[in-house]
């Protein structure tokens, strides 16, 4: 009896381990393709488990879709693309391990990801040492490409291998400040961030730009992104007379924060960055009406290339939505595919022996019409697409409100 129970306990424990592994093992190696083709693997690193997994799974599917589309179209003759998706659990240490795994697989010619700036900080150097191209669809920390000197105008490219289709916090914060001050006419703002690389960076950029325009930050505070009870924080906002709350962080905490704000009897909007521009935000927060968010590029629904993306995504029947970073991930993956094409074209139709070097060299030359607009990279590896859109929650859904490019000096 005792032994049977022990066996059962062991089975339960094994079950637990399997469950944890499942999230990262059902990789999208279904690319398929003609025999005799050269296989090119594109790595994908994102949180596929944990509370950011909704965003991460959308990224994984979008990358998978890009590879499938390229294979179907025979976009690069003689090359079949495969996606190797790995789960970083939004943990920098796990991301660093994944980076080593990608580097040691010689078929990997480019890596798409990760979602979190803090994870990226651990991946950039190993990739740079290995000469492996990395394109992040979601990292917005300005210092990732331009170094800490960017605030004083001393931007220095940090890593030759790092590119991104996401815009920087600098652009996003400036755009949010301009929108709020000039378009919405709100001059007094309370500032909250979640103390993470993304949230704190965005809040700091917003603060700098908003005060430069003449706006006033009437108070600031920080929250723990795992918390869901924000009554104590919003009670403090009341006496400051703030006309809006700017939040640097992601939607899982932003939704209850906004709800608590409205519950406390304050009819002021919460504004955030691309981290809260998710369909989940108005779903989780019944009082989201009037809340604001900024995101990269023109509204996806307006671009023809984006319509194709949405239609193809639905046709593939993915279980999870493409979420906030699906389009940018598709573009990031497609950028690697374009670079492979350039490398192959420049080598008489064959993949060069040092594929990683050829892909990296091609990255600065690519230019194509992506899901989120025209994609090319500047001297820092940042996207040249600086168009941003402000969205407002109307009838429980995000609706585009205003598009433009912020003035930067």
């Amino acid at each position, binding site marked *: 009896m005792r032994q049977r129970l022990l066996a059962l306990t062991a089975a339960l424990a094994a079950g637990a381990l399997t469950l944890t592994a499942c999230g990262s093992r059902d990789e999208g190696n279904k690319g398929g393709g003609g025999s005799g083709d050269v296989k090119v693997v594109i790595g994908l690193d994102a949180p596929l488990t944990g509370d950011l997994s909704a965003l991460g799974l959308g990224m994984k599917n979008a990358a998978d879709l890009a590879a499938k589309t390229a294979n179907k179209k025979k976009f690069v003759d003689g090359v079949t693309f495969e996606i190797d998706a790995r789960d970083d659990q939004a943990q920098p240490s796990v991301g660093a391990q994944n980076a080593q795994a990608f580097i040691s697989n010689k078929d990997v010619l480019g890596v798409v990801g990760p979602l979190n700036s803090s994870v990226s900080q651990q991946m950039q150097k190993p990739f740079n040492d290995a000469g492996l191209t990395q394109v992040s669809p979601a990292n917005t920390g300005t210092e990732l490409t331009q170094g800490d000197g960017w605030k004083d105008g001393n931007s220095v490219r940090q890593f030759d291998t790092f590119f991104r289709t996401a815009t920087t916090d600098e652009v996003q914060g400036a755009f949010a400040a301009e929108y709020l001050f000039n378009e919405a006419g709100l001059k007094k703002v309370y500032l909250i961030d979640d103390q993470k690389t993304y949230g704190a960076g965005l809040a700091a950029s917003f603060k700098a730009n908003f005060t430069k325009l003449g706006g006033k930050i009437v108070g600031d505070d920080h929250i723990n992104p*795992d918390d869901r009870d924000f009554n104590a924080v919003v009670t403090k906002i009341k006496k400051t007379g703030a006309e809006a709350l700017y939040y640097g962080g992601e939607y899982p905490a932003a939704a209850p924060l906004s709800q608590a704000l409205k519950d406390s009897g304050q009819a002021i909007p919460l504004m955030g960055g691309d981290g809260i521009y998710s369909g989940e935000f108005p779903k989780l927060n019944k009082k989201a009406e009037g809340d604001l968010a900024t995101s990269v590029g023109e509204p996806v629904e307006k671009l023809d290339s984006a319509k194709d993306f949405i239609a193809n995504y639905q046709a593939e029947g993915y279980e999870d939505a493409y979420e906030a970073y699906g389009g940018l991930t598709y573009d990031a993956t497609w950028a690697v595919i374009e670079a492979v094409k350039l490398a192959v074209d420049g080598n008489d139709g064959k993949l060069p022996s040092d594929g990683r070097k050829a892909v990296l060299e091609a990255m600065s030359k690519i230019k194509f019409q992506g899901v989120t607009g025209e994609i090319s990279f500047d001297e820092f590896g940042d996207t040249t697409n600086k168009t941003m859109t402000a969205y407002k929650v109307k009838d429980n859904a995000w609706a585009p409100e205003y598009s433009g490019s912020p003035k930067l000096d």
Partner: protein
Amino acid sequence: MNELPQQLANGLILGAMYGLIAIGYTMVYGIVQLINFAHGEIFMVGGFGALTVYTALPSSLGLLTAIPLMILGGIVVSVLVATAAERFAYRPLRTAPRLAPLITAIGLSLALQQAVWMWYPDAKKDVPFPRFEGDAVNILGAHIQRGDLFVLIAAPLCMIALGFFVNKTRTGRGMQATAQDPDTAKLMGVNTDRIIVMAFAIGAAFAAVAAVAYGLKNGQIGFRMGFLMGLKAFTAAVLGGIGNIYGAMLGGIVLGVAESLATGYISDIPGMELFGGGGWKDVWAFALLIIVLLVRPQGLLGERVADRA
């Protein structure tokens, strides 16, 4: 406007929720000296149980009528998971060194999180939970949301019922006996296995009530909600004196109010601007825990062995 009543109410509501969860930690610890770290996940599955019932009910039924059924659904799921955990994960390890069940509890907590993540529809992200419509009610200068009234009513009712159960019923007295000395209790004819299962079940039922309160309050639940709430509730149980049921509730309320006041006021103290606000509230809450444990190592209400259950 004076915000003190509001901050006290915020703390009380949060603290009552901590207290309800803390009961589960304290009862299990009192009887088998096990810190059941999977209890946060018992709380979490209770929330999903309640939500499942709500989704299954016809929407013509108002939320108020649905609540008793939701609580029942939550309790059923929580109790089933907790008793199964006791039977298959903890009981085989009862004579093993202390560390073995502790690590089992942590593993179980991960397994339950992942199970909900994988198999509950759409639970890879936070899922919406119904809330009461309508404006807040004003009580003594504090805005109280309608959903928050639930925990303010449920918590005292639960505590009265538990006090009655532990002190007046046969099983309750058996619990006290088992807590004091399991071997002697067994010799006196107390079915200790059943008592232990009861302790897990009662803790789970309280956690399910807390989960409904959590959902009504925040309008959402998620597979990770048990982690932080469980940790805080465990802190509350230690603060109040682990093993003491009234201590668990008191510890929860003290912790909730401390967090609320730390968020609201510490940054207003001159020279403390950098150490106040939401980012530091947990630091202050744990500082309070350390101070209390320095002065009273047994916790606020510890050592009242007679009520230990």
